C-alpha cells in the first residue's frame, strides 16, 4: 500500500489511469509550493478526482496531457510531480 502512495503523475506514462490521493507541492525552482497547490486546485486537481495520461510531448515526454474528470489539462512533468495518485486497474 505504501508503495502505491508514493506514485505521482510526474513519472506516469501515457495510458496510466488513477485516482488523486493528494497534492504534495515541493519547492522546485518554479512557483512557491503554496501557490502551485492553489493553481492545481483551481484547475480541478483535488483528492478523489480521476486522472488518465492521454498524450506526451516528443522531447523527454514533456509536457503531458491529462484527462481530469470532464476536462483535459496540459502540464509539465515538474508540476505534475506534485500530484500523488494511486493507480486504478
Amino acid at each position, binding site marked *: 500500500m505504501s508503495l502505491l502512495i508514493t506514485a505521482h503523475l510526474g513519472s506516469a506514462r501515457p495510458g496510466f489511469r488513477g485516482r488523486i490521493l493528494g497534492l504534495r507541492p515541493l519547492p522546485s525552482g518554479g512557483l512557491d509550493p503554496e501557490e502551485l497547490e*492553489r493553481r492545481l486546485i483551481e484547475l480541478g486537481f483535488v483528492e478523489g478526482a480521476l486522472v488518465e495520461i492521454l498524450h506526451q510531448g516528443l522531447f523527454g515526454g514533456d509536457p503531458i496531457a491529462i484527462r481530469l474528470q470532464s476536462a483535459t489539462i*496540459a502540464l509539465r512533468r515538474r508540476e505534475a510531480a506534485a500530484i500523488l495518485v494511486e493507480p486504478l486497474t
Partner: protein
Amino acid sequence: MNELSATQQGFSVALVGNPNCGKTALFNALTGSHQRAANYPGVTVERKVGTLATPGRRQVRLTDLPGTYSLRARSPDEAITRDIVLGQRRGEPRPDLLVCVADATNLRLGLRLVLELKRTGVPLLLSLNMIDIARHRGIEIDLERLSAELGLPVVTSVAVRRGGTAALLAEFDSQSARRPETPSSPWTAPDAAELRALQREADRLVAVAVRVPDRRDALTRRLDSVVLHPVGGIVVLLAVLFLMFQAVFAWAEPVMDLIDGSFQALGVLVGSLLPEEGWLGLLRSFLQDGLIAGVGGVLVFLPQILILFLFILLLEDFGYMARAAFLMDRIMGGAGLHGRAFIPLLSSFACAIPGIMATRVIDNRRDRLATILVAPLMTCSARIPVYTLIIAAFIPDQKVWGWIGLQGLVMFGLYAVGILSALGMSFVFRRLLWRREASDPFMLELPDYKWPRVRDVAIGLWQRARAFLRRAGTIILAMMMVIWFLSSVPRPPEGATQPAIEYSFAYSIGTAVEPVLRPIGFNWQIGVALIPGMAAREVAVAALGTVYSIEASDDDSAELGSALSGKWSLATALAFLAWYIFAPQCAATLAVIRRETGSRGWAWFTFGYMLVLAYAAAFVTFQTASFLGAG
C-alpha cells in the same frame, strides 16, 4: 417610475467565467454588432462592452470580463475581473448583475467559480452554456436541483443558435425589476484549504445534479490521437504553418499590389496638381512623400495582417492553439519563452506589428514582455526588398556543393540568424531581467474541438483590423511625419544641383554620424538613407536610390544594385546585411511596443538593445570581411 429610472440608467450586467467556457461567443450572440473593444485605461487588457435590449424593453449594458479560473487574480486580465466584480476598480461601477458562464460539458470548474463568486455578495446567476453540446453528448443536468442547492437562478444558453439566449434575457428582465440592494462583503483571497473545500462542494453538486456518460468527445479523442501524437503532431503543426505562410505571402500579394499601386497613383495625382517649387512644393512633398507614402507604406501590410489573424482566430476558436502551445512548449521553454509565444513569433515573419498584437494570448506579463522584445528580430517581410537588393548586387549567382544556390543560402542564413538571435535574446532577458522571478509553469486547458462560427471570427477580425488601422492612423502616421520632415526640410535652394535630400536635416544627421558608422564600413550615403528607412525598412532602398541620384522608377532595383556594387566593397555590403538583421529600423514597431507594453521605456529598451546588436554584428562582419580581403 421605478422602471423608468432603471431604463434610463441602464441595467449593467457582466459576464464572468472560465477560459474556454464560450463566454465571448455568448457575448457576441447577446450584443451582435452593438459592441466596442478598447483597453481599460492604463493597462493593455481588452475591455469589451456592448448594449442590448431585453424582450421587456430594458436597455442592458453588458461587459465581457476576461476569463478566469478564480477571483484570486494572477494576471492583469484576471485582476481586472476581480476588481470589477468586487467594485474596486475606479470609474467602473460594480455590475448590477453578474452572470457566471459555465461550460455545461465541463461543469466542475465553473461550479467552483460560481461558489467563489457567491461569497462576494453580488447579485448572481448561473448560465450553463453550450447546453446543446452537453445534451448531444448525453449529459443530463437537473436544473432545479442545481438551482436549489446553489440558491441561485440557473438558466441554460446556446450562443450559436437563434433563441438560445431567451432564458438569459428573460432573467435580465426579472432581475432588473428586482434590483436588490446588496451590501458588498469583504473579500480575501482564498487559501488552498478554502479552494479545496469549494472544489469538493462543486464536485458534490456535480454528483447530485449531473449525470455524465463516461466517455470523451469522439471528435476530440480521434483528432487528438493524431494532433497530439509526439511525431504526427509536429508533422501536422508544420503543415498548418506551411499553409499559413503560403496564404500570408501568396494570397495577400494581389491585394498588396493593388493598395501599393493605388497609393502610388494617388501620389502621382497629387504631384501633378501642385508645383515643385516654393511653399506649395513643400506641401506637395509633404502630401506625396509624407502623408500618402507614409499611410500607404503601413496599409500595404493590412492584407497580410488580416489573413494572418484569420488563421489565428480560426485555429483559436477551433481549439488548436492550445495544442500548438503544447507541442512547442519544450522547444520554446528552452529559450525561456512560453509555449504560447510560438504563434506571435511566427506572425512576426510577416510583420512584427501583428505579432506583437498577438502576444495578448500570453497571460503572464513577463512571458508576454519577453516575446514582445524579441518579436522584431524575426525577419519581417519589409526586410526582403533590402535583402534581395544587396544579395543580387554582391553575392555571385553560383552553386555551392554543386546544387545549392549561394544567393538562396545567404537569404536562408539571414532568416536563421534572425530566429536564433530571437531565441538567444529571450534566453538572455530571462536570465538578466527576471532572474529572481519564477517562470510561470505551463498549465493549460486543452478544450474540446469546436467548429468556429463565422460571426465570431468576423467580429474578431473586424476588431483587429480596426485596432491596426487606428494605430496606422495615429501614432504610426505621426512617426512618418517626423521622418518626412527630417528628410525633406530644409528645401534645396534655387538651382540646386545635388539631390534634395543633401540639403535636409537627414543629410546633416547622416554626415554627422558618419565617423561612428565608419568602423562598421558605412559611408555617409548609408547614414543618410537609414533615417527615412526608419519609416519602414524597405524605404531605405528608395532612399539609397535618392542619395545615389538614381532616377526612381519601377525597375530601379537592378540599376541601383549595379551602382552599389561599383561603390560599396563586399565587406560594406555584408555589414549592411548584418545591420539589417538586427537594426530597430521601424518606427511603427516601436510605436506598437510602446502601446502594448503601456510604457515608453520598453520601446526605448528595444530600440537600444537592437541598435547595439546591429552595430556589433555589422562591426564584426565588416572587420572580419576586411581582414579576409573583402574590404
